[in-house]
């Protein structure tokens, strides 16, 4: 059971990581038209960088657990140039009448979001399977 706990912790870390991916994709979609942020610049598309991280359990200290978790290494800003749109009446338009819009491509973000949601669900399945396995092992006692 201890090693299954390590697997459970790895799945839990993946759930955290993919929840972060969903959050970032959702904020990209939400801010697809935000022409100004706290710094006065248009919103920049953000991306999650994931890295593998060993799960810390009593077992991993003795090298008995093989489960490797995942963690959010960084959330980086996409540095591709902003989109521009001709809209002279807009308060954020420059002197030529062009407005700088975030470098967010909504369809792409929706695909990212769905991918993250599916990854989250896949890890939920893994958690369910581990729990089912532990339950069955406990049934040996009956």
């Amino acid at each position, binding site marked *: *059971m201890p090693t299954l*706990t390590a697997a*459970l912790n790895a799945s*839990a870390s993946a*759930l*955290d990581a993919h*929840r972060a991916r969903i959050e970032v994709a959702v904020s990209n979609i939400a801010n697809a038209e935000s022409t100004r942020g706290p710094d006065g610049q248009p919103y920049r598309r953000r991306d999650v960088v994931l890295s593998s991280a060993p799960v810390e359990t009593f077992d991993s200290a003795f090298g008995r657990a093989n489960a490797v978790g995942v963690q959010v290494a960084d959330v980086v800003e996409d540095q591709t140039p902003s989109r521009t749109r001709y809209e002279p009446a807009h308060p954020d338009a420059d002197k030529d009448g062009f407005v700088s819009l975030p470098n967010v491509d909504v369809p792409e973000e929706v695909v990212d979001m769905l991918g993250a949601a599916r990854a989250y669900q896949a890890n*939920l399945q893994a*958690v369910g399977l581990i*729990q089912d396995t*532990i*339950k069955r092992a*406990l049934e040996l*006692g*009956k």
Partner: protein
Amino acid sequence: MTMPIGSITTGSTGAAAGAVRSSTKDAAPGAAGAFGDSLNTLLASVDESAGSANSAVSNMMDGTGDVHQAMIALQKAETSLQLTVQVRNKLVQAYQDVMRMSI
């Protein structure tokens, strides 16, 4: 008769095995103490996991934790409770087997 009891306790807790094996003559007091110790150890671990489940749920409620973290902590608590129940069943059964033994 000592062997099956010994193997049960070694498999589940380990701590009680010696005490049970050395108390074949006066099974009741020695075995009761060993059984009690094993159960206490298990109950302490149930208590601990219930406590972490509790804090995970309250974290979820005040927005600092996730639903999945709370549910996984709850599941861990339930699993450890079920393990304790199973071990208790086995211990009580073994104890009753010893008590029923005719010498």
